[in-house]
């Protein structure tokens, strides 16, 4: 029975119990689902060629043995079999392969197999997300057949392209523009057509990356603004009478309140979902523009859809049947960043502590390929148990990618290797560098590159900050399609360069005994670097700001 039939056949409380009942599971109940499904996955994964390749002939029989025998894995462990799509080596026959960017510029794509069981679970959990996003309180939600969704995510073969298919398996929601048409359109064309259709039919749901939602929302405002060359009559013709009336009333109200037209003036959005990184930076603005705060969900290429916020927006709850969750505590995560050979300890979902930061480790259920996989995302456990939601389970907040990867607005994955390659290609005389993801005063993310130039090259080379920024930007865009999309789609140039005086990195190393971390060093380390730069200046009696 499809979800839309259930809407007529069952009461809201029954539907809520079916799709959102996991929220009120006890810790033990949640863990028993986790452990039971892990046993199923072990039975599939351990004897597979993929499993044996990682296990090196060992055969774990229990969950404890599984956790001790299977090392923590990264995509490199799977790449030889997955990239060549050797389906016979997998725990189960995949139905579809989805792909994403692996490492900007170096290794363009990684792929992940999805089995029938994974897709079924994914579909169920997507409906759970839809209900939770449309809920105002426990058991109270409004989802109707024929609602319209403005969908600002990438089509297949990206995992986001699966969502419309899975949703439409369960309920007849109209995507604006229709998925088939959208696949062959540019990002801008999709937005324009989506908005046009929205003005005719209304928009009840809106889903996308936080940054993209923000960009699209701004575009909608401009599309309705006075900048358009069309006459009022033409504009009114293109929209439904109801929307026309609403537009006129909204314009009148905006004039009265001396403000620009906002999407909330035109649309009664019921369900506002965002995914990806840096959503925190955009949520307040999105709420201002649409009148409701977006709810966040966790989904990824490797793990599928694993969690969703509720009406309270207090944190994301994980689904019990998508993956087996393990968490690397922050100190263990940092230690493994310092020493790549170190095997960090993990804790289980029921062992996390409120307020602590963890790196997520996943074993995908239902014949998935990934076991004890470091997906590269960092979360904070914001609390355990909620009086408002009437549960006793932990909830999480997405922090960012792990420190060795810089993800800007969910678009790029810049690693040490990709920066190195850009620098090499640019042939800029950079002696030393460190990169950190930072945020503007307006809370927008950017890549801050602290560089030190080669002393001897300064005489013969033109190396102003502008040149550095432009040249490196060109090569970043050349190497990384996603970086280019960031510029092309969102119009963002996220690179900021700060030049550090020659010798500063060496001075730092001399002072602290080890070089500063290349990727995402702690803010205090950056301060220490700047302090080295300043003290060096004083000692040498140089002019302030020579090189900055």
């Amino acid at each position, binding site marked *: 029975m499809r979800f839309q039939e259930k809407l*007529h*056949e069952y*009461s809201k409380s029954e539907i809520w119990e079916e799709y959102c*009942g*996991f929220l009120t599971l006890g810790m033990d109940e949640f863990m028993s*689902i986790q452990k039971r499904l892990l046993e199923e996955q072990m039975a599939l994964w351990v004897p597979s060629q993929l499993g044996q390749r990682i296990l090196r002939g060992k055969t774990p029989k229990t969950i404890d043995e599984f956790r001790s025998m299977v090392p923590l894995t990264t995509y490199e462990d799977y790449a030889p079999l997955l990239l060549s799509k050797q389906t016979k080596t997998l725990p189960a026959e995949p139905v579809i392969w989805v792909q994403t960017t692996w490492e900007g510029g170096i290794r363009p794509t990684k792929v992940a197999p999805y089995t029938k069981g994974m897709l079924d679970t994914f579909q169920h959990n997507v409906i759970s997300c839809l209900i939770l996003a449309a809920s105002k309180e426990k058991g109270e939600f409004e989802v109707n057949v024929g609602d319209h969704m403005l969908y600002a995510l990438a089509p297949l073969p990206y995992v986001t392209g699966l969502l419309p298919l899975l949703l439409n398996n369960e309920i007849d929601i109209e995507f604006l523009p229709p998925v088939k048409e959208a696949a062959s359109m540019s990002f801008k064309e999709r937005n324009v057509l989506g908005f046009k259709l929205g003005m005719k039919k209304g928009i009840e749901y809106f889903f996308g990356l936080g940054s993209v939602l923000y960009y699209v929302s701004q575009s909608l405002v401009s599309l309705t603004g006075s900048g358009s060359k069309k006459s009022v009559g033409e504009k009114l013709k293109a929209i439904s009478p109801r929307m026309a009336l609403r537009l006129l009333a909204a314009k009148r109200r905006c004039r009265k309140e001396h403000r620009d037209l906002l999407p909330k003036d035109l649309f009664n959005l019921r369900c506002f979902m965002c995914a990806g990184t840096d959503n925190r930076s955009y949520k307040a603005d999105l709420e201002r523009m649409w009148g409701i705060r977006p709810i966040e969900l966790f989904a990824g290429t490797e793990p599928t859809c694993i969690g969703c916020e509720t009406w309270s927006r207090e944190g994301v709850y994980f689904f019990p049947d998508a993956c087996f969750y393990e968490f690397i505590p922050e100190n263990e995560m940092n230690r493994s960043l310092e020493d790549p050979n170190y095997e960090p300890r993990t804790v289980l979902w029921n062992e996390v502590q409120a307020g602590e930061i963890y790196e997520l480790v996943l074993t995908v259920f239902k014949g998935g390929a990934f076991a004890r996989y470091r997906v590269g995302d960092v979360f904070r456990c914001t609390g355990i148990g909620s009086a408002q939601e009437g549960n006793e389970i932990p909830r999480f907040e997405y922090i960012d990618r792990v420190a060795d990867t810089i993800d800007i607005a969910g678009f790029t994955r810049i690693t040490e290797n990709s920066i190195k390659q850009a620098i090499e290609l640019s042939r800029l005389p950079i002696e030393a560098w460190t990169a950190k993801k930072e945020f503007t005063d307006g809370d927008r993310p950017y890549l801050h590159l602290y560089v030190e130039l080669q002393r001897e090259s300064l005489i013969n080379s033109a190396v102003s900050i502008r040149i550095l920024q432009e040249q490196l930007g060109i090569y970043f865009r050349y190497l990384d399609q996603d970086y280019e999309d960031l510029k092309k789609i969102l119009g963002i140039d996220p690179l900021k360069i700060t030049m550090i005086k020659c010798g500063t990195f060496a001075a730092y190393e001399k002072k602290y005994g080890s070089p500063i971390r290349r990727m995402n060093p702690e803010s205090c380390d950056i301060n220490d670097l700047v302090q080295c730069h300043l003290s060096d200046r004083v000692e040498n009696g140089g002019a302030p700001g020579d090189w900055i």
Partner: protein
Amino acid sequence: MTGYNWVSVVSLFCYLYLLLTFAVNGKSEKVFSKFMLLMAVMIVWVGGSVAMRAELWPSVNFWHHVSVGGMMLAAAVYFLFIVDFLEDRHSRNTWVWFVILAALFVFDCVTCFFIPEPVVTYAGGAAIFTYTYTWRFYLLVGIILVCIAHMIVVVVRHCRGNRIAFRQLRPVLIGIAILLAGHLLASLPQFSGIPLDIISGVFNAVFVFYALYKKHLFKMSLLFSRANCVVLALIVGLVLGLRFFRPMQQWLEASFGTPHVGAAICVSIVLVLVVIGLAVIFSLIFRAVFVSRENRRAERLARFGDDVMHMLSNDEILQDLTNTVRDMTRIESLMVFLRQSDGDYRVEHTSNPLDEKNFYIRADHPIVTWFTHHDECLNMRDFSRSTSYRSLWDGEKKMLAELGAEEFVPMLSGGDLVGMLLIPGKKDGAPWSVSTLETVHEAAAKCAGPVRDAVVYERSIEEARKDKLTGLINRKYFFEVLDREFEQYKDTMLSLCLFNLDDFKAYNQVYGVQEGDLALQRVAGLLSSSVNDVCTAARIGGKEFALILPGYDIHFAKLITENIVEEIGRINDRTGGQIANSLKVSAGICAAPYMATSARELFQNAETAVYNVKRSGKNAVQIYSSNIYYQTERQYKFSGGYRENASTIYALTAAIDAKDHYTFRHSQNVAYYCEELGKAAGLSGDLIEILKEAASLHDIGKIGIREDILNKPDALTPDEYAIMKSHVENAVNIIRHLPSLDYVIPTILSHHERYDGRGYPQRLKGEEIPIMGRILCIADSFDAMTSERNYKKPLGLDAAIKNLQDEAGGQFDPKLVLIFVDEIRRGRIKVLGNADAAPPLPSPAFSSPTGEVTKDAPAPAGAAPAPVT
């Protein structure tokens, strides 16, 4: 009374009856209290109206207000009832309407503001009640309509998108529609005089009642309980009393001159009797019409419960369960999962014997967990929508889908989940009715305890009967089965095949004990799978197996045995035929009634055949027969088994000789007598060879007896005699360690058995004693009699012969005694006595590989006959 009044009275009684039904049966759910309140309000409404029309005491106006009160409160109570019926959690302050309307009623009672009191006029003796309605009345109607509108809002809000709730509520809504329509029509002049309002009220009550029934809140039998019959009889009695008490009293007074008080008593007695009679009649009618069905069901279930209480076989219990369920419901097919020793639940029984049974449900399955908290049927559609369902494995989901599982019914005994019943869905996709599931649930609950007991019983029986390693039946149970089968098939055909693995000790040494155990399991599997269910495979010793083949003749038994022997040879074929130390087996077959007259003889003959194969080079199949000899040589050709054993026998007999020369000589003599008697008795050459070897070794156990006992000139004390008797078991214990000679064990073991069953060690009787044991017994005794010992002189030949003849049928086989004595008298058997006639070792008892007895063997050259006296 007018027709109008009659309708009113009948409807009043309907309400009263429904009210009392629930009041008497003490239903505690909130919705029932609201239903009873609704009935009470309707009674007040109609009752007030009836009493007013009847102008009963105290006054018309009093009853008018009572009736108006019922009418005004009806809407509010309906509202309360619907909220509880829908279990609507969102509706708050539901009593507000009741309070408002109750307040308005009180206000109206005092002021007659809304409805003025009726004006009573009389026309032709009949009272006519005239109301004058003003805008105030319509104001009251308006308020009541607002209450109804509120109720509609609640209904719409609750049922929007919830078809199930709407379907449940539909009868109630129809009832309300009828009620409103009845009142509307009653106000029209066209329907003047027809009590449509009253009739619609009754219909309304029936619909509400039906809605409760459809929601499975009570059983229909509740309506017709014994208490209700009494209540109904009382109500009818009251009506009759009101109507006929006075006329009957007057009739008695007038007709019979009965005094006033006396007439009243008489009428009262009659009325009481009528009430009792009515109660009985109602009870019988309801029982016949409604209750009997329910009771039949209860009786059938009770009978089923009694039946299964006395059953100790799960098959029987589950078959009875299936039959009961099929009889009582429309369920055609079901599947029973029972808990196994590992905690998992496996299919133990299916209604259709052709259904696959290879399914199981793990002990940690969410369905099992669910039943630990719920003693009720589990609907798979509902379960598939629960959070627990999310922990199901894909394989488990697939299995449930394949089985078409619609309902699971628990078999709980004291909270312990013994098993589960799986009921597939109906072909038309419709759900099973609640009553059907209740029946199955009750039946399952009734057999849960017996099933648990039967499982324990069967398991203990099985453990006692089965060999743990191989799962075949063990030696003890094998003999029970053999006896049973022999009794059943002795007049037709019964074959027995015995298998003895060759050189298994060496196999264990080569491959290890673990591999040896595996080999035993594989052999067991091979035996089980080679025969049908009528046959029985058993493990009767460490490396010995048996097949009982009822109804099989020798020919088929031979074919089966040969196939098995061939397959056993391939068990550890890991090198494509180049087998090192492959598993080999010696097999012997005997069949009744051709070659055995008792189960024990059948077994011993088969065993003899096995030992003959062992002795003849192993790895072959032999059919026992004293005349017919059949032997199939396999890939390993016979290669002089006797000669191979010669050195072993030499060593053993030399050991006896060193310790006790007399015993050595005695053994030689006995071997000679055995050979000769065996020939005379018609034994085959091979059996004679076995007999000779057994005779040479029959006293080998005396090596372990102290010399002072062996050579004691006086009679032995009881303790010494007991020690002496142990030489038989000592001999067996020595030879057991020589696998190549183990075929002589049965003969040696049985040579002290007596034909009358008083011998030792097994107290075998008659032909239960192997023929070679009986021969050895005669030879042993004859030589003992005719030889001199430390403690006695030799008997003369005649005395010895007399002793033999005296003990024929006692210690000895009478037929063999006859033969032996005849041979002695004819001089074909020479009496050796104490003549030290034994030739130099090797023993003269040994034969050539071809089985020919060497000429110089038994009768020592120049041996003088034993002294006759």
